[in-house]
């Protein structure tokens, strides 16, 4: 790809980059978080959010206010911004946006399938699906019995179709298989996204590839951590690791054999990027968990993406930072819903 994005990027994408930088400026600041921490009820949270860029987004909500409603409204707001970017984008940025929405589509498909397992009505689940991952064939997902059914009948026309390569099997979809399906889909998706960014080259590759490598390695670590003590075999576990990260291939092979946290830590110690992260993990309760440390690193990388211009990474970074903000607000607000017996 011809280097020198600064010569031609703005022709097609300059308006959107300017817009996303403006949106980024409206993310919550340290002061906003201090105010949120001092809130005492959900109404306080609503009032504080009115002074930020969120404004009156909760104005139409009926009482009582719940954390779930706040979460849904925040998501809708992000979705509106994202759809605006997407509708005004040109290739190859539009493909980039499509790749971004695939991860939400995967989550929605899994939500629908789990709901079918629990005999929930489709309408009930559709309400809770992530708006960014909406696609027209969603309502038909629950009729599928096996992954090949799912592919042939429902998903063959969607952007998720290419990710089904390793997932076709005749196994019925029970909980274990749904979890395996989710992780395999995500692995294919991540590897495809990585390849797209790498092939695009230029500043986009320089920014996005490290972010996606980190995402792949993080998934490998978290899958390993959560699989201790479960019925997932080591071989199955290894098939779920995305291969586009720094850990591939030796690290992943070692990680597949790990049986506890310390063995995982020893694998991470081989990599200069991950050693300090594992050292920051506190022991037991009270300290940071591995997930916290990973979230912090992700946010760091996303913020740094804004230091370069003329690349698509700013859109990815903005969406991820906004999601982190929503996670923070929901986590803070959930302490107001603790039941007292």
């Amino acid at each position, binding site marked *: 790809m011809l280097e020198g994005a600064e010569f031609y990027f703005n022709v097609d994408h300059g308006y959107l980059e300017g817009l996303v930088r403006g949106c980024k400026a409206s993310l919550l600041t340290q002061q906003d978080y201090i105010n949120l921490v001092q809130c005492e009820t959900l109404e306080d949270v609503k009032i504080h959010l009115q002074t930020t860029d969120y404004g009156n987004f909760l104005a139409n909500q009926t009482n009582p206010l719940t954390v779930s409603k706040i979460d849904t409204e925040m998501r809708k707001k992000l979705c509106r911004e994202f759809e605006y970017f997407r509708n005004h984008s040109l290739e190859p940025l539009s493909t980039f946006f499509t790749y971004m929405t695939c991860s939400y589509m995967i989550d929605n498909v899994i939500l629908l399938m*789990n709901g079918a397992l*629990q005999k929930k009505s489709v309408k009930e689940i559709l309400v*809770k699906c992530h708006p960014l991952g909406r696609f027209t064939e969603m309502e038909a997902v629950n009729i599928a019995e096996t992954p090949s059914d799912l592919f042939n009948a429902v998903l063959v026309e969607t952007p998720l179709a290419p990710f089904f390569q390793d997932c076709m099997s005749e196994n019925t979809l029970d*909980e274990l298989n749904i979890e395996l399906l989710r992780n395999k889909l995500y692995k294919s998706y991540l590897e495809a996204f990585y390849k797209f960014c790498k092939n695009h080259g230029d500043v986009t590759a320089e920014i996005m590839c490290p972010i996606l490598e980190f995402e792949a390695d993080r998934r490998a670590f978290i899958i390993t951590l959560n699989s201790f003590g479960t019925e997932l075999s080591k071989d199955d576990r290894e098939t779920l690791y995305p291969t586009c990260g720094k850990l591939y291939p030796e690290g992943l092979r070692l990680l597949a054999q790990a049986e506890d946290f310390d063995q995982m830590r020893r694998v991470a110690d081989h990599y200069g990027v991950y050693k300090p992260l594992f050292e920051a993990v506190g022991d037991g309760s009270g300290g940071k968990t591995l997930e916290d440390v990973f979230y912090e690193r992700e946010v760091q990388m996303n913020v740094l993406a804004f230091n370069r211009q003329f690349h698509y990474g700013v859109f990815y970074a903005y969406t991820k930072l906004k999601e982190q903000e929503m996670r923070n607000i929901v986590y803070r607000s959930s302490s107001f*819903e*603790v039941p007292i*017996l």
Partner: protein
Amino acid sequence: MANGDWTTWEEAGSRPQFLGPMAAPDLRAELDSLLLQLFQDLEELEAKRAALNARVEEGWLSLSKARYSMGAKSVGPLQYASLMEPQVCVYTSEAQDGLQRFWLVRASAQTPEEVGPREAVFLYPALRRRKGLTRTPEPESFPALRDPLNWFGILVPHSLRQAQASFREGLQLAADMATLQIRIDWGRSQLRGLQEKLKQLEPESA
């Protein structure tokens, strides 16, 4: 006849009872010990209530941490069926003093699994059967008792497991609290009865 030995005729519905001499001090002693027992029970109940609230709060915060990692809609009512088989059942039995006690019994003896992290399941079997119906143990009609943790997937974060452990501990406390409350109610009615008797014995010192 001493004045305090017979109940007065004026009290409607009361029949004269011969309580014997020294009835009043005995009654007072009994009253005192009952009161002490009642206060002890109340203190224990308050301690257990504080512990239960602490467990529920801990569990709830662990649940929100799990939502933080997994996504807010991935840990919620969508993940479990509206009808579920309880894994822990409440049985009642009569103790020697005629009071009911509540026991928690795991539904299947083979798999050492207990109630999952949902508040609905946590409250549901206890409240429904609190009215003291004796429940016959069900035959092995549970097909396969799965850990409710698996409703949320196979690879669940550690915080969800912690939430399950907290709610499990809270369940035992709830059963103990129910037993204590029955004892306290009984104690209060006994107390009232004794106070009535004392009033009848010694109308001037009421």
